[in-house]
């Protein structure tokens, strides 16, 4: 089976823009709304999610010839739950602030539709390298998506970006962008998460609609141009035939 050139690059980029798991396929929304109160928590959640996704995709792809049809689902669930438990224990030991901030949402990576979906749809049918690149792209896309939501929620909600409480090896700094009296604290509430998510989806729908309209406009122009050319050619032929 010959691979077309640039397959790996397309495979990697599709997880970030074209098939972004949060904004295009609307999967894995529970952690995206609950852990995006601060940028640090969202970054931590994204990193843990990417690690679990890569490890489970690679392992499922390694074992894809050995696991038969009937026990597919329980086997995938056990593999994913194992990696989630390992990641949870390492987080509890080395980043205890992140563990107490994220709480039960680290365990909920097990039932995240993205991890199970990628394992069933892609990793069980492709080889190890492709599955690794696909998982890396999807994880990076998810991390960027929840980081953008956390950016809006934290800047509009508290007016400042603060870093260094969870990742203690980075010195603590706090950058106040909007004065604290003008910050809208509704964005730190659950309602604000829904609003930010809805508005981002609306902006993406707007851009997609504009693109579609532009493509339709270009196609129409092309059709008109072709019709004019054909008419000119027919008129030329008639003129030549008349001259002869």
């Amino acid at each position, binding site marked *: 089976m010959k691979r077309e050139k640039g397959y790996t690059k397309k495979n990697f980029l599709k997880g970030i823009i074209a098939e972004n798991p949060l904004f295009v396929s609307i999967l894995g929304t529970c952690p995206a709304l609950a852990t995006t109160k601060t940028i640090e928590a969202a970054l931590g959640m994204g990193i843990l999610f990417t690690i679990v996704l890569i490890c489970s995709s690679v392992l499922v792809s390694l074992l894809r010839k050995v696991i*038969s049809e009937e026990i597919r689902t329980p*086997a995938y669930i*056990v*593999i994913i739950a*194992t990696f989630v*438990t*390992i990641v949870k224990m390492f987080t509890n*030991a080395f980043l*205890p602030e992140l563990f107490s901030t994220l709480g039960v949402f680290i365990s909920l990576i097990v039932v995240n539709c993205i991890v199970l979906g990628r394992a069933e749809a892609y990793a069980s049918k492709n080889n190890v390298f492709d599955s690794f690149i696909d998982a890396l792209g999807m994880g990076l896309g998810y991390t960027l998506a929840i980081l953008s939501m956390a950016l809006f929620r934290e800047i509009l909600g508290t007016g400042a970006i603060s870093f260094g409480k969870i990742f203690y090896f980075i010195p603590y700094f706090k950058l106040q962008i909007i004065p604290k009296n003008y910050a809208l604290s509704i964005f730190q509430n659950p309602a604000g998460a829904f609003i930010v998510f809805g508005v981002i989806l609306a902006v993406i729908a707007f851009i997609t609609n504009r693109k579609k309209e532009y493509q339709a406009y270009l196609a129409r122009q092309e059709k008109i141009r072709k019709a004019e050319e054909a008419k000119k050619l027919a008129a030329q032929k008639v003129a030549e035939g008349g001259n002869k």
Partner: protein
Amino acid sequence: MDKKHYIIVSVTLGVIAASAAALIGLTNLITKNRIEENKKIKINNGIAEIFGKEALIQNEYSFENNEYQYVNYVYEIQKENMIGYAFKTEGSNMYGKISLIVGFDNANSFVSLSIVEDEQTYATALEDDYVAPLISGSRDLDDVSCGATFGAKLVRDMVNDAKKANEEKVWIK
């Protein structure tokens, strides 16, 4: 043919389950000590918050016979000499667990308290509305109506329990 298929399926499942259990057990061995250390660091941070940075734990006693409803451990705190006692309390209500350190000085008066562990959903409301004014003195201990009433009631009960333990001082023979 069918039997062989079933055997292969169950063996695969068994191998996956066994290796999963082995991996998790290995991780547990590696991280267990670190998690215990983190808990001790949290307690030391709480005591530093109440008594100041140079306070050290001189001795520690644990109440093993459930003499008190919430108090588990008492620590003798000293800088150059004895400056007070700190009580570690644990309790839970329908929203989750709370764990506090309550500090009293040598004159048996309440110094401060520090929250070690609070996993309730309205933890921020509890800290902002009840605990912070209580420490700075602008709120009464019995005034528990706030944004997190059940949590505030639990904190009040734990502080009263620690007061009782401080008055009785059963560990000094």
